[in-house]
């Protein structure tokens, strides 16, 4: 369990997290990247902007 850096919801960690693995927050659906393993830290993965409507 870890807190989502975007919205603070708790996010399940996989049994053996791998570095740079992408997780998904079930609440705000942010993509989280595993940044370090001991301790397990995650950060927001870069976001893709939609480009609707010019």
């Amino acid at each position, binding site marked *: 369990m870890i807190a989502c850096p975007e*919205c*603070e919801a708790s996010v399940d960690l996989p049994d053996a997290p791998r570095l740079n693995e992408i997780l998904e927050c079930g609440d*705000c*659906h*942010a993509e989280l990247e595993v940044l370090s393993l001991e301790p397990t830290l995650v950060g927001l993965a870069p*976001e*893709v902007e939609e480009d609707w409507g010019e």
Partner: protein
Amino acid sequence: MARVAIVGGAGYIGGELLRLLLGHPEAEVAAVTSTRLAGRRVDGAHPNLRGLTDLTFVDPGSLEEYDALFLATPHTETMGRMTGYAKIATTIFDLSADFRLRDPEVFRRYYGLPHEAVDLLPEFVLGLPELHRDRLRAADRVAVPGCMATAGILALRPAAAAGLIEPEVTIDARTGSSGSGATAGPENLHAERSGAMRVFAPTRHRHEAEIGQETGLSVRMSATGVEAVRGVQVLCRARLAPGADERAVRAAYRAAYAAEPFVRVVAQKRGLYRLPEPKILSGSNFCDVGFAADGERALVLVAALDNLVKGGAGNAVQCMNVRYGWPERAGLTFAGLHPN
């Protein structure tokens, strides 16, 4: 098993009540009225019900006695008849606007004529389980709120209640054509209404009164008809109170709606459907609620629902479930479709 009757059953809200109540495990539809179509099969007006019922419409004058009565008649048509309805049913769910506003003066201002049953107003509880569940458990007079009002109240109430926003808000509502009912006029001719972005109420849409009453906010509301049959979406603008931010808003909404069976918080950072949108809600009783802040104290709140379900008939059935102590989801399990 409760024996229920629907007044105004040939209309769109009446038809939706029929769809939901025919599939309800605890209710038996004992009568459905239509003046125009008395004697005709209900599946003539509501072709989706073919094969599911052999009911025919009866004239409103031939109603007998029922456990519950659902009124799906136009506003200003029920207030003068309420005393009569009260004689034939224990519990009344009025889907019209007549008993939603506690203050008859506000009613007059928004509906343009004096209220005809001021003395009955205090008997009514507003049919919004998210706000009034406890009182609804014992309520025999329920005034179900308007479709855009329900969306607006559910969008704004947690932020207002937690003091996260300042009291002045604006609402831009968008609605499909079924909101005008089955007896709509030439403005709803397909060739005119199709593809429209019709700002039919640039200012002072009626539902701002209900939203103001239930949230304590000062509301300015416009409404636009857009291309859709079902569906309402509200986009609300508020100013964050000093110290508040999107995170605090998220926490408040998460808490407020955690136990709600029909409100989902939808405020995602990825994906196509990041904020609430009605097209995936058609037929379902969900109201989705979301928000986004701009980092400079501007907060946008969005809610979406199906005007005929959570915006009307489904919400009334949910109120009935609360009133009778049935599971709140009974008869309301349809999830909505994607794609749609």
